């Protein structure tokens, strides 16, 4: 009897996994004193979504690479709830000796931390370990929506919550001179997409990876990328800002101050809608532990094994680590603080 090859390979993989329970030596590229830090330890990546989604797939591709590099056991914990705040609180409250990382979009984490006083923290409580990939937001729309057409002046959008829609739809619509009405309460991107298909709404915002996948079914259009230059993964799709962008096209003929104001709004949107999928560590982690954890995470993010594992799951990887990653996240935080009064005004006008 010959077993299917996939079963044979799986049996071998299971055997290898069992054998790998034996402690593995830490990667020699890590600082020398890190081996003792990792010995017998567990590394936890907290994902604020359910298992099986995009962030979870990345995290599960990263965990075995971290295990191989550190010799410690790396695991993924899914902690959905509270719009990601449950996971933020879990990481923030971790004991200083625990090696734990939050994996979420910086554009989701920053507004939560800065606007929700009940979390009782600031961005100084989180440190950036690295960015896995940056994915701009897009507008996913029903067929027939032509944003370049000046007669397109009103759109109805689907969203889970009004707050999360403020930047990619509310502010972007303002920049385009389009009146947007949000129907809030749909349960995530799947429900948003279904609402467009049923004709209840015209569009919804979605990350580029999600939107590209949705477009493959030919049921929906990718109407706009919230960037200021064409994205390599979607070169044919119009962009919001920059030269030749949709703002420029729709505001041609308007007085110069109004054009400039719309461009300014567009810049805010582009700054805040380019979601870096970021790994954060609690700032109060013990310094030595943190240094080793960060070194291991940097090595894992830049490892060809991680790239191969993520890409096998159809997840692109464009890692950014070190001061460059800190700078990207700090820039988003500054842009958010600058835009906050405007966003609060927008929220008041869109809420009941």
């Amino acid at each position: 009897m010959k077993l299917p090859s996939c079963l044979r390979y799986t049996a071998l993989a299971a055997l290898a996994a069992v054998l790998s329970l034996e402690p593995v030596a830490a990667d020699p590229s890590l600082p020398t004193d890190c081996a003792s830090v990792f010995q017998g330890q567990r590394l936890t990546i907290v994902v604020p979504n359910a298992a099986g989604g995009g962030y979870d797939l990345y995290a599960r591709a990263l965990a075995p690479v971290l295990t191989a590099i550190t010799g410690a056991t790396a695991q993924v914990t899914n902690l959905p709830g509270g719009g990601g705040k449950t996971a933020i609180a879990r990481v923030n409250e971790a004991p200083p000796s625990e090696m734990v990382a939050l994996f979420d979009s910086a554009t989701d984490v920053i507004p939560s931390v800065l606007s929700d006083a009940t979390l009782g923290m600031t961005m100084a409580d989180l440190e950036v370990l690295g960015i896995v990939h940056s994915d701009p937001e897009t507008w996913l729309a029903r067929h027939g929506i032509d944003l370049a057409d000046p007669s397109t002046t009103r759109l109805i959008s689907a969203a889970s919550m009004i707050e999360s829609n403020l930047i990619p739809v509310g502010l972007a619509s303002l920049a385009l001179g389009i009146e947007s009405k949000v129907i809030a309460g749909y349960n995530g991107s799947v429900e948003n997409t279904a609402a467009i298909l049923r004709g209840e709404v015209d569009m919804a915002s979605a990350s580029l990876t999600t939107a590209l996948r949705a477009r493959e079914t030919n049921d929906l259009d990718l109407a706009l990328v919230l960037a200021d230059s064409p994205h390599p993964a979607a070169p044919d799709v119009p962009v919001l800002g920059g030269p030749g962008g949709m703002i420029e096209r729709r505001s041609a003929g308007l007085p110069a101050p109004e054009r400039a104001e719309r461009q300014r709004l567009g810049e805010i949107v582009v700054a805040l809608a380019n979601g870096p999928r970021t790994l954060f560590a609690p700032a109060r982690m013990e310094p030595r532990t943190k240094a080793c954890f960060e070194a291991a995470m940097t090595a894992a993010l830049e490892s060809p094994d991680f790239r191969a594992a993520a890409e096998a799951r159809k997840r692109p990887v464009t890692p950014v680590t070190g001061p460059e990653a800190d700078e990207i996240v700090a820039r988003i935080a500054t842009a958010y603080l600058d835009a906050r009064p405007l966003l609060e005004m927008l929220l008041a006008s869109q809420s009941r």
Partner: protein
Amino acid sequence: MTEFFDPLGIGLANVFSWPNILIPLLGTVLAMIPSFLPGIGAASLAAIMIAVTVTWEPVSVLLLFGALTGGATFMGSITAILFNIPGNASSAAVLLDGHPMARDGQARMAIAASATASAVGSLIGVLVLIALLPAVRPLLLQFGPAERFLFGLWGLVAIIAVPNASALRALAATLLGLTLALVGSDPVSSAPRWTFGAFALFEGFGHVAMLLGFFTLAEVISWRRSYDLKPVAPVDASRDSARAGIRAVFRHWGLTGRSALIGTAVGMIPGVGGTVASFVAYAQAAQGRGADPARFGQGDIRGVIAPEAAVDAKDGGSLLPVLAFGLPGSEGGVILLSVLTIHGLTPGAPMLTSGLGLSYTLIFALLLSNLVTSALGLALAPQAARLTRLRIDRLALPVLLVALVTSVQLNGTLADLHVAVGFALLGYLFKRFDWPRIPFVIAFVLGGFIETNLQLSQQLLEVGRLQPLQRPGVLIVLGLIALSLWWMLRKPAAGTAAQRGPAARAEPVFAALLLVLALGLAVISLTGAPAYSGFAQTLVWSAVAVLALILTRGLRAGGGLAGAALPAAHRLPFVALAALPLGIWLLGLPLALAALVGVWVVLDTPAGRWRIVRAAVWAGAAGAGVALYLERVAAIRLPPSLLASAWGGLV
């Protein structure tokens, strides 16, 4: 016709050929592991399998994931029937009648009926799926927020008539269930509602934690020293046989078919889920022809058949939105979509045309898995039924520990344990004071679903994107609601006050407790925060009004404190559970559970020189077992207790 039959043949050949068939069988076995044990996530297991199967051929992957989708459903019902522990949220409806049957010496029959209903439901679901698949896309677009809202409302209307001696108490329980379902955040503004600043409550009370508390832990409170409980009836082949269970499913073929169709329809609606399917099916079973609502909840086999058929039929339906539009309706669907994407399979039109053979492969693997689990369930029924011979008071501690650890394992936090404990106390009091638990639970399960879809429908009406009377689905569900209302008006209320237990005389005490709870929530809702919508306020103030009426009536009828005291044997578990959150905060989970076990064993052991030693051994074993399990198996790290922090500070 070849366009239809050729892909069907490909699907059948892919599944039922050697050695391919090994893959779905392996998937079924894998899926059973978490299904037996609540809280060990089936989704996490499937997510791990994504990594394992990255290099597999698409057909092999579909065979495995079809089986993982199907096999995860039925086995949770066995623990629900035997031990009152729902293996997953959707098997909670099965315990309503399944566990009373097991206590009445009919465990074998209940498990057999459950397994058979599962197989038949799954088969019907798959047949409907096969028939609809080529033309499913327009159909799926008919299920919008308006249809969902009315569907939830139908479930609620149907259940209000289920066993109760007082329509007023059923109404109060329903309103309370709906109100507690709204704890979390407002679906439109996403502003927190009745969360008291706890992030863990932003998504509301977890359904599994609530069900574990309300049924399992609440039941355990009354198990200690339950020597006076009616013993399990001796095995009597004429009353308890697997064959009788199988036959019952076919005797109630109309009910089985209706429930399976409900499950299939629910499965087709993304985001609704098996819990709603099973409870709505249970509710309509109680309204079926010849059904006596008073028997439901007491061990009526129809209360086992309906939810089981619905839950397993749902699996087939749930594949449709993923295959047709790439829209997953559940965690399992999200994983399946990831799998399709990873292996270059495009959901949507391609999976229904050129890839139809692969779609059927997935469907038949799911069917095979469901049939295998049912066959195993039937085979295990006689052995499993023997477990009911164990003395119930001896089961109390193990079940208590399993349920508590499970609740922590759900999301790796203590919040779910607190939810489970809170609902355990409430559930015990519901039982003790003879209040109807089923309307409360169904209202709780459906409450958030109803509110979300009502609010979406209102918004769509405002912007002119919804014309309800032009939607066939809306008209059909409105017809079902009208039928249910008509049925309710014809049926007299079940039971009388005279049939209620002695504790019912103390009803004003319980009504007053609930009134304080509802009034507290109602007063908070007056703060004017946007989360407290008109819907939320109407519900909570209606609950206050109905509870006040019940209290007044009870006092007028001479009710009072007499009979309110808990039976002596129930006091320790009740107080211990109530104090557990405090104990965990002080000592940490393993030590707090060890203390609970120690006290329990001391009080249950006759005085003697080994009494303390025995208690210490059991307590140590329980504490060490829980600590090791959380640390090594479940890989959960809980926040340090006050004691640990103080010790750390000293060291």
